């Protein structure tokens, strides 16, 4: 009986949270249609999400590209197809790993920060204070954050793609002694613009997920410091899971 109750509670929680995220998204779309838009807040958040996330994104992309090149080379060497290393590295990064890894990194850094910041503002009545100062808290806090992360994630994904491909190139050419011309040719000849675009669409979608989940958890936070902690944990876990699950469906839709 206890087991069934816990399953029921879990299902109810999932539906509750999904409902909250949907409401946030609907409210966001509605409020985007009319001023005020708080451009200064949007720029500040874009700087926070984009520029401040660069180091972690660059490091992750560089080493992922390097590992991919190493692993692909070892496998392709078994049937003398080492020249395909560049293609595998670039395709994997542009279509899949670039947006997903950037999404996961940003979910950990930015999603957590959104939830913690808005959660603290909620429990210390700063969100209520905004209302009493005739400022719509949703427009001022949530809209710029969700927009910033939705717009910046594709840019981060592009940078991650380039850095990852360069990491793979560096390992293939300087460590594994592959021909640089063949590596670059194989990378560019087989790659189509569609591969690049699909990665960008995915990145923008993951950005929206991170923004909506992080902001919803923080904005609706209850229960003091413990509540802020739980909201932050939920924001990161749910964002990461949503990215991985939605990645499958997006891939099936984009390439199906």
């Amino acid at each position: 009986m206890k087991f069934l109750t816990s399953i029921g509670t879990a299902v109810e929680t999932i539906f509750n949270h999904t409902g909250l995220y949907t409401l946030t998204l609907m409210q966001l779309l509605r409020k985007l249609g009319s001023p005020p838009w708080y451009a200064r807040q949007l720029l500040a958040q874009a700087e926070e999400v984009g520029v401040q996330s660069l180091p972690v994104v660059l490091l992750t992309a560089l080493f992922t590209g390097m590992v991919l090149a190493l692993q692909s080379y070892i496998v392709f060497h078994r049937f003398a197809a080492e020249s395909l290393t560049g293609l595998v590295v670039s395709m994997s990064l542009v279509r899949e790993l670039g947006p997903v890894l950037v999404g996961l990194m940003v979910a950990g850094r930015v999603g957590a920060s959104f939830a913690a910041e808005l959660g603290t503002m909620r429990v210390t009545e700063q969100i209520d204070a905004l209302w009493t100062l005739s400022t719509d808290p949703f427009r001022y806090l949530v809209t710029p954050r969700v927009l910033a992360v939705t717009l910046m994630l594709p840019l981060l994904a592009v940078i991650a793609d380039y850095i990852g491909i360069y990491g793979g190139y560096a390992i293939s050419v300087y460590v594994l002694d592959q021909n640089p011309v063949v590596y670059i040719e194989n990378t560019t000849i087989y790659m189509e613009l569609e591969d690049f675009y699909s990665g960008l669409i995915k990145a923008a979608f993951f950005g929206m997920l991170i923004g909506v989940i992080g902001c919803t958890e923080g904005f609706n936070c209850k229960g003091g410091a413990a509540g802020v902690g739980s909201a932050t944990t939920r924001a990161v876990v749910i964002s990461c899971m949503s990215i991985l699950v939605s990645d499958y469906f997006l891939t099936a839709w984009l390439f199906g």
Partner: protein
Amino acid sequence: MIDRVSGKESGEVGNDTPRISIRGLCKRFNGNTVLEDVNLDIMPGQSTTVIGMSGTGKSVLIKCVLGLLRPDAGEILVDGENWLTLAEHEHLERMKRVGMLFQGAALFDSLKVWENVAFALLRRKVGRKQARERAHEVLEWVGLHDVGELMPAELSGGMAKRVGLARTICHKPDIVFFDEPTTGLDPIMSDVINRLIVRLHKGSGTTMLSITHDLKSAEMISDHIALLCHGQIHRIIPANELTSDKDPMLRQFVEGRATGPINCSPWGKKIEEVIDR
């Protein structure tokens, strides 16, 4: 004798509309009734303080008036207009006339002190230079010099409260709400805050609604005091009659007795059972 709702002397005929009129306000949380048929009128320029035990719904009352909580029933009339029927953007427009000092000051951590104080002006497209000048002027008024460039985290509790007060009045509101203005402050700083509130009230004739359980503060800053008890406004008296009023519930509250007509643990056991155990 004072009328329970209007706070006016019996027989006094006033044709002026109350600035704030709370009618039949009810609010429940998870089946627990916190406010039940609350009625209270505050006339223009009047300062009314609602006192009551912790957990009786004083903060809920003020949040309902400000639109931060949606009541289950009742009306909030401000200058005759029901704020509960307003659309969100209309409500926000009305908030331009309102100031609110929160219990913990609720300063924005990411903004400098002067930006906090001038927040409402900056949102109204007042130039930054002009807004900064006004912020420093109001900070001077609350007795704070050279703190404009500090961050809220660098302020003491008393300073934060005064900055909160400066933010509350910077845009010259004509209705001001105070949520526990002196809670958590030492007696001297409490007196400073009380005197500033009195100065504001006398100087600008602002209509004020405060909630507190600090009786000294209530007596000092109010024209009228209302006792909120068991979810309802039980009694309204002139502030100078707080210590002389004979109402048993008010007496119990003023004397700070655990036993009496006020049930100290409304959702639990009778308090006698707890303290005599």
